[in-house]
């Protein structure tokens, strides 16, 4: 009996899925088909949620002119290759792969589908039909540094990093530049969580920082755990990727918010008008696809839980970065062992940022590995 039921059920499932696909392909024609690959389910905070908001902006802007397919919860690695290939097979014309670890899978599939355009988020490898997009997250961290430097009483800043890669290290160094622009006595201690996402470990790291005397916390990991601990223990901190003040109304000073929507819209428009390109030129990190505060790809949430004088300074830093008056990595730059990185009058270019494997002055310890 059970076997019989199972057979009937599988027959049902099979015919339902066949019907679904027939229906699906019969009505797809005119709209531009856009695919998204997400690392996790969007939830309502953090990295993937920021992409989800971007996707929603795309849908709002183009309406029925686009047909968006999303695959959530795709682990980085072989699974990603399969998912991206499937999206390409289904006739998506442009596919956004929204995590660093999708870099090789994206390139691999792109080779098999030369007519499909791929946009890899935060990667550094491109090919004829693979472009890369990224946000200058470090610009927000400079402002965090300014606020931290003015707010700290113990002069100890606790920083939680995910992995010691250039992306994260340049954020720490940018934070240090902001910090030292207002407070020469404060310094940053870094704890590497060796994961992007492990709420308990992030909470533990936050507790350790506080026990070691830090009163301002910053993070480059994904969960709101650090802010919750800060809230509980009376410390202050910054939100990551999205506004996290709901988790820590008394502890969040502000959040750097990733705003992918305008970038997605621009790239889809380029595709529709036949102008899509990888932006490759002699300068590998062509600035137009690595947007920050000025390009409004990085937004700064409301300044809160700080006196007006500090908020004013923060606003000045924000305006300075927007207008280009503040050049975060301008010389003279000295690393934390005293070695000169770049003399006065020069500044680090984008390529140098992606090669960062040292801490600037103001950060304790050394980069692991």
């Amino acid at each position, binding site marked *: 009996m059970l076997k019989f039921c199972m057979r009937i059920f599988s027959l049902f499932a099979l015919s339902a899925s066949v019907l679904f696909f027939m229906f699906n392909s019969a009505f797809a024609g005119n709209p531009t088909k856009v695919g998204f690959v997400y690392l996790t*389910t969007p939830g309502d905070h953090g990295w993937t949620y920021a992409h989800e908001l971007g996707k929603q902006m795309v849908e709002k802007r183009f309406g029925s002119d686009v047909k968006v397919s999303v695959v959530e919860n795709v682990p980085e690695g072989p699974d990603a290759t399969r998912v991206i290939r499937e999206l390409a097979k289904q006739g998506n014309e442009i596919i956004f792969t929204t995590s660093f670890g999708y870099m090789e899978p994206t390139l691999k599939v792109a080779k098999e589908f030369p007519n499909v355009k791929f946009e890899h988020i935060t990667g550094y490898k491109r090919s004829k039909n693979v472009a890369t997009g990224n946000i200058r997250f470090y610009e927000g961290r400079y402002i965090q540094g300014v606020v931290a430097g003015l707010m700290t009483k113990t002069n100890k800043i606790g920083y939680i990093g995910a992995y010691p890669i250039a992306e994260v290290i340049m954020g720490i160094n940018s934070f240090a530049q902001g910090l030292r622009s207002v407070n020469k006595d404060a310094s940053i201690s870094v*704890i590497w969580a060796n994961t992007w*996402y492990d*709420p*308990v470990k992030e909470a533990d790291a936050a507790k350790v920082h506080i026990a070691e005397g830090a009163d301002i916390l910053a993070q480059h990991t994904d969960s*709101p*755990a650090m802010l919750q601990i800060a809230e509980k223990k009376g410390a202050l901190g910054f939100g990551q990727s999205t506004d996290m003040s709901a988790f820590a109304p008394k502890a969040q000073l502000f959040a750097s918010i990733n705003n992918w929507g305008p970038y997605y819209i621009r790239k889809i428009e380029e595709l529709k008008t036949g102008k899509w390109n990888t932006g490759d030129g002699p300068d590998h990190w062509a600035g137009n696809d690595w947007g920050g505060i000025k390009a409004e790809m990085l937004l700064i949430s409301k300044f809160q839980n700080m006196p007006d004088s500090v908020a004013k300074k923060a606003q000045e830093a924000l305006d300075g970065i927007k207008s280009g008056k503040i050049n975060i990595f301008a010389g003279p730059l000295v690393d934390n062992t005293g070695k000169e990185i770049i003399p006065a009058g020069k500044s680090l270019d984008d390529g140098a940022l992606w090669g960062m494997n040292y801490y600037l002055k103001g950060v304790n*310890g050394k980069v*692991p590995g």
Partner: protein
Amino acid sequence: MDALMLTIIATSIPLLLAATGELITEKSGVLNLGVEGMMLSGAVGALGAVLWLENPYFGIIAGGLCGVLMASIFSIFTINFMTNQVATGLGLTIFATGLTGLAGAPLVGKTVPSLPKIEIFLLSDIPFIGEILFKQDFIAYLSVAIIILITYFLKYSKSGIVLRAVGDDHQSAHSVGYPVKKIRWYAACFGGMCAGIGGAYIPLVLTPHWSEGMTAGRGWIALALVVFASWIPWRIIVGALIFGGITIAQLVGQARGWPIPSQILSMMPYLATIVALTMISGRISKSNSVVPASLGKPFFDTQ
């Protein structure tokens, strides 16, 4: 120092509870690799209950019940249908990861008040020790009570001896008339309850929110911990504190800039487990093994 000790204890408690539950399950001869899944369901159930009933103590009960529910699913398959325990346990974790993601979706972004600390009269005023030992939350006291109880249960009570007999040789236990399947069901459900409460501790105390897969592998560490403790309850306390201590030590080491790579410290608990395993297998020849002899073997009562 106080604050660090408290952090270590808090980190250890989910491990401690889940490992204790698994110890009882394994003592009855059932290997349930679904601890991670049971912890996750405990976590999501607890948070849901607290949001609904607005009392953190219901979270503990709900967490325990969700764990039992998961363990029942496991027991139906492995004990009644005699499926392979390893495969079913792994399946349970994968199933629970998906299910909790689905069930937890409406809870995302909500936060709850954490479990209150209970101060024990006078004792909590003792400097240093009082703060650490007598100013904990309910689950922390509960977990210590459970360890003491099961130590007594396994060693001195008749039911405990029957449980061990079932785990060591289910055919003999069956032939003298003990209900092997029933006992294994109880043991597996107790394991589920403990894992569920252990999981509940994460959203109730450590980080009061829900996010998918928030146990992040602690269930697997709990499994290693049972082996590390060589199936002796009090050693789980030691093991959990060592595992928790090393986790925190590597964070402290980084904050203070110790010249030890954090990866080496992260490796230590697992190295310790391997060493413990080697020592156990070395001892088997000398005396009776501590490993339940029927562990992982399905029981067919028709034989």
